[in-house]
């Protein structure tokens, strides 16, 4: 099943000139956002991007950038209350094994 949220992938940017076509972004992306064609990566499904930042962190050519952060309203609210960036607080968040929690 394909899920889509709000403003998915809005901050994801791929510089095709810098891309070396290694496919590492395809390998780390859990949402199938990228595809390599003719030796260059391409954003194929921006709407599925959750901006986790895995691709940018693992791009050997620094061709990718994304404003990564936890997509967690509770962390955002906590950050707002404390006047900080979105924060999960000190307690490790609830027992979420596969789900992407804060």
């Amino acid at each position, binding site marked *: 099943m394909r899920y889509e949220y709000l403003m998915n992938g809005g901050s994801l940017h791929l510089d095709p000139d810098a891309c070396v076509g290694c496919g590492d972004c395809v390998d780390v992306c859990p949402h199938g956002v990228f595809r390599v064609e003719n030796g260059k990566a391409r954003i194929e499904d921006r709407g599925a991007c*959750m901006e986790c930042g895995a691709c940018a962190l693992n791009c050997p050519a620094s061709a990718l950038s994304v404003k990564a952060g936890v*997509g967690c*309203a509770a962390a955002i609210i906590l950050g707002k209350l404390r006047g900080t960036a*979105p924060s999960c607080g000190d307690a490790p968040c609830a027992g979420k094994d*596969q789900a992407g*929690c804060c």
Partner: protein
Amino acid sequence: MIDLVRKPAGPAERQAGFAALSELQVPWIERFLVVRGRTVPVLRTRLSPRDRLGAVKVRWGFGRGAYRVLPGLYAAGKPGPDSPVFVTANYKLSFDALRSSLAGIDGWVLVLDTKGVNVWCAAGKGTFGTGELVSRIAKTRLGALVRHRELVLPQLGATGVSAPELARRTGWRVVWGPVRARDIRPWLEAGRVKTEDMRRITFTLRERLAVAPVELVHSWPLAAAGLVLAALYGLPADGSWSSRALPAAVLLAGLVPVGALAFPALLPRLPGRAFSVKGAVLGAAWAAACAAFFGLSPTASASGILVAAPVTAFLGMNFTGSSTFTCQTGALAEVEKGFWPMAASLAAGLVLGVVSRAPGA
């Protein structure tokens, strides 16, 4: 904290010394392997009923703080210098998922100190990160045990670990394994070729409900508040108090299971993209159904709906943290745009509730 590579005196003492450490007297360690003058705990690859019970408990939010394992190097089967190294977090559910997937596989297991948080969350926070990996490789002197320089990491760790940076700093190469540990065996058997399914994160009904109990447990103050409101709504405390308080109690306290269980179950079917919108629709529907069932007055019904919608909108919004596809920009927009409408709806609902109980209403 005791590191697993601490050096005891001779081989026999090594065995005895390690077995005596209380941190290593745990049911998931089967025996100890002495290799190259080192003692490495060997993992059981079968989960015990206790492990399974622990998983259920932690899903319900009990004993989470202590649900961690000692970071360091472990063995699965009879690993040698060419065996693969699997990296995981020291959250016991993550660790259990990995070791139970390694039955019949000879390998090393490197457990990072993620403060008892699962791989993906810890990667998002940076504790399952390049820095911790670099220091854990050094602390465990992993390089002395294996001939290769390759680590198999769970794919979701890529949010915290930078493979290019690790290679620059240490010379170790990352192989991104499947998202789910249970795919490790088919992945190895296929010659380490990941299928599209092994690479994708999912959010099935089962997965959505697995993360629901914790939300349910955390929401008890909301349920309590609902019951108090319902009790007040029923006043004065005459003979028909319960006939007024009971419907209100069902409607209000019911919002917690509706928002924390029905919401995740119905997530893909609820209208809208924003979780707050989905939640508001669900809460309003619940309140309307309750109002119809109990035959509430139009004012009381409107009050119930206006109170219910923001409560479930809030519970729904909080579920973004458990979901596998929400991004921060969207969550931020939802929090900022949602606050005032939610507050206004709640206030209007409470006022209407009082009005509906006024004499002559």
